[in-house]
């Protein structure tokens, strides 16, 4: 049970790793709805545990070389320091990585306990921090080129391509989760391997040693982080860096998985050595930073226009700030655990901190002795008794302020955590309310935009309809004009023929014919139809005209409508079967009635009513 308590800080670290880093593997797939979250979470959880148990030892060993933490209290404190640093830096929106935090915390332990930091191992680790993202970028470029070439050569149906990408995302995601477990389990459980020794479990077909059992527990913690919290991270920050196409997402995840795999595979390292190459350093690498490297690689391949170079700055800041912060937190927490709770954190006797503590103790002891000298003058029995009492009281008086101070500090720490959580909750609530409002306004805006677009389309349709109707009317009018002209010329022709004919019967027949034409000219069905048509089409205009000019007559209204169609006096004359001169006269009267100045064109004035 006590072991579980000490492991809690590592488990918390594992949970946060699962919650955050699963987005690097399945973020785009889930965010773009190519893969359902449930499926992604199950695959990631299974493979992260397998990776941790099967291949987690290599990177963990390197961390052990950096600082072999031998006591449970120290391991607990180091893991807690890393977790708190990650938590605090994330709250401060600073770039942070669990891998760098744990290294910083171990170095903090080295400083506190006066254990030497292996510079060779440290150099190896720091080199990997830089080479990890670089390698991620190189892999991403090569893979992206390969994918593009394959896409060009193979012409697949879009739906088959979509299905292949889906399966590809799952497959690569599984490999990514495996590599994440293999490489990053050292961050979660690496510090505990030296201080916890669990009995070997023999299942018959396989045995699990203490480290493997610890890695299994850490893997489960990561899996719980994935299942319980990563969905939110995937949906919110999954695509913030750069929206990726599903093909690019496969490339990025595969590049990241390869880098993490390479830096955790003992077999690969041995294979390198066997062919005379230097061994691969097995070091926990930040998956987020490798992902950034991979995305930048794709950006560079595409021409570098979309690259935000300030990301590089933030990675560098993460490399520096995270270990320093974690180291400081670790140093102070170790001091606290060591001196307040009197827990062994593996400190050497000759460590500078221990020396300072011992000096404080000796000053306190000498002060006690000074006090006792003055009491020696009293009776020897009393002196001896008194001295014993005093020495005990004063020893306590050295510890009491320490405990009070420690408790206060612990209270303050708890209060600050409580306050941070409270503030975070309030901020989350405010954010969600703000988001809701924003969504509401966006929705309204979208609705308005849609309505506006619809109105525009409707307006343009109406304009087209209007133009079409006007053209129709003009065509109709022109038809009437042509017909009337034809009838007029026919009538004139008949009159001319009639004058040359002397037969009375024939003359009478011509007269009848002429009369028929005249009647047709004055009672024209087409004209009637046209009149009805224009009245119907211009009903609004005619109503407006009557309202504005109540004294306007029906004939004047008809003339106004024809003028609105931009017809000439001759054309109007033909339509109304009156002479052009009469039209001119009617126009003049209308101008007077409408009180239009002689400088203004009557047709323009009418169109503007």
């Amino acid at each position, binding site marked *: 049970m006590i072991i579980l308590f000490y492991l809690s800080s590592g488990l918390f670290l594992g949970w946060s790793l699962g919650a955050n880093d699963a987005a690097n593997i399945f973020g785009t797939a889930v965010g*773009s*709805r*190519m893969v359902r979250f449930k499926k992604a979470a199950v695959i990631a959880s299974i493979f992260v545990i397998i990776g941790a148990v099967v291949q987690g030892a290599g990177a963990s060993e390197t961390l052990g070389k950096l600082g072999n933490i031998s006591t449970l209290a120290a391991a607990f404190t180091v893991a807690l320091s890393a977790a708190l640093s990650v938590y605090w830096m994330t709250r401060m929106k600073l770039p942070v990585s669990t891998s760098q935090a744990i290294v910083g915390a171990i170095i903090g332990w080295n400083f506190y306990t006066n254990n030497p930091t292996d510079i060779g191992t440290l150099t190896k680790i720091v080199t990997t921090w830089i080479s990890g993202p670089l390698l991620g970028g190189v892999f991403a470029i090569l893979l992206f080129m390969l994918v593009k070439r394959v896409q060009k050569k193979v*012409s*697949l*149906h*879009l*739906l*088959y391509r*979509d*299905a292949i990408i889906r*399966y590809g995302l799952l497959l690569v995601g599984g490999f990514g989760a495996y590599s994440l477990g293999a490489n990053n389990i050292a961050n979660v459980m690496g510090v505990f391997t030296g201080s916890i020794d669990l009995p070997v479990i023999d299942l018959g077909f396989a045995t699990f040693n203490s480290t493997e059992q610890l890695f299994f527990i850490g893997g489960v913690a990561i899996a719980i982080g994935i299942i319980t919290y990563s969905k939110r991270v995937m949906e919110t920050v999954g695509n913030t860096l750069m929206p990726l*196409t*599903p093909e690019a997402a496969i490339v990025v995840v595969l590049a990241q998985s390869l880098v993490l795999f390479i830096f955790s595979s003992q077999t690969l390292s041995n294979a390198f050595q066997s062919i005379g190459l230097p061994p691969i350093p097995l070091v926990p690498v930040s998956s987020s930073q490798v992902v950034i490297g991979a995305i930048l690689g794709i950006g560079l391949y595409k021409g570098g226009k979309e690259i935000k170079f300030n990301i590089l700055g933030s990675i560098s800041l993460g490399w520096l700030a995270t270990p320093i912060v974690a180291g400081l937190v670790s140093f102070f927490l170790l001091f606290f655990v060591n001196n307040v709770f009197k827990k062994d954190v593996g400190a050497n006797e000759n460590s500078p901190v221990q020396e300072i503590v011992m000096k404080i103790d000796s000053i306190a002891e000498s002060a006690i002795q000074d006090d006792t000298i003055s009491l020696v003058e009293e009776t020897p029995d009393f002196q001896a008794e008194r001295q014993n009492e005093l020495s005990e009281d004063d020893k306590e008086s050295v510890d009491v302020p320490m405990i009070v101070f420690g408790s206060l500090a612990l209270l303050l720490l708890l209060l600050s955590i409580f306050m941070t959580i409270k503030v975070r909750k309030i901020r989350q609530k405010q954010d969600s309310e703000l988001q809701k409002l924003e969504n509401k306004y966006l929705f309204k805006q979208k609705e308005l935009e849609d309505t506006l677009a619809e109105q525009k389309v409707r307006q343009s349709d109406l304009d087209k309809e209007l133009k079409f109707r006007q053209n*129709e009317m003009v*065509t*109709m009018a022109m*038809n009437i004009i042509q017909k009337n002209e034809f009838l007029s010329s026919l009538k004139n022709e008949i009159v001319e023929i009639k004058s040359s004919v002397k037969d009375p019967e024939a003359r009478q027949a011509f007269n009848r014919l002429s009369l028929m034409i005249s009647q047709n000219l004055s009672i024209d069905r*087409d004209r009637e139809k046209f009149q009805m048509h224009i009245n119907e089409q211009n009903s609004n205009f005619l109503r407006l005209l009557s309202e504005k000019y109540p004294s306007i007559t029906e004939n004047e209204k008809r003339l106004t409508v024809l003028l609105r169609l931009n017809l000439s006096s001759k054309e109007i004359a033909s339509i109304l079967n009156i002479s052009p001169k009469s039209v001119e006269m009617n126009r003049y009267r209308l101008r007077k009635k409408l009180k239009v100045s002689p400088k203004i064109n009557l047709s323009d004035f009418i169109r503007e009513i």
Partner: protein
Amino acid sequence: MSLLFKNVKELVRDIDEFINTVEQGVLVFKEGVINYLNDEKTSFAEKLERINYLEANADKLQRKIDDEFLMHSILPQNISDIENMLDKIDEIIDISKDNLYQFEVEIPYFPEEIVQDYIRLTNTSVEAALHAFPAVRTFFREPLKVKDILTKVFFYEKEADRISRNIKRKLFHEMDELQLSQKIHLRYFALHIETISDKAETLADMLSIMALKINL
């Protein structure tokens, strides 16, 4: 492997069937109009029945495809574009059916001298649509090649416009023996037939943008 792609295979088949159905619908429309213009009443009635069936079938297939896309969130980044495209394809068969029914309901009178012009307009307008369908098929297989196919759609659409304009001019300027109402009626039928190529052009515009988007 075939088990993995079973759903996809079925969906691909449905999409192909949908495009084939609409294509057949357009061909039936063409034959139907020609039947009407040649006064082949029995054949025309058959075409009406056939286009009715094809349109209903296309609707059924479209609904099935929509459901599949949404249920399995297939091509999530292009789903709205693809659904719009399917709508536009469906519109072509809808319009074809409606137009053929206009002939049946309104029984327009086509004078002998203009029949050939209407047949030419029908052929050209339908040709525009018939060239849009291979572009849709190509979009799903080789999006980069879509643009090359679409040039024919744009060509036939312009040609249909020109023929339609000529018909209208002929109706209103040369055929004095027709009543104005008849001229206007016939003009509407030129418009109806022309709409097929207009719809094909809208589909082509959409396809060319989608092909660009998918290749980004």
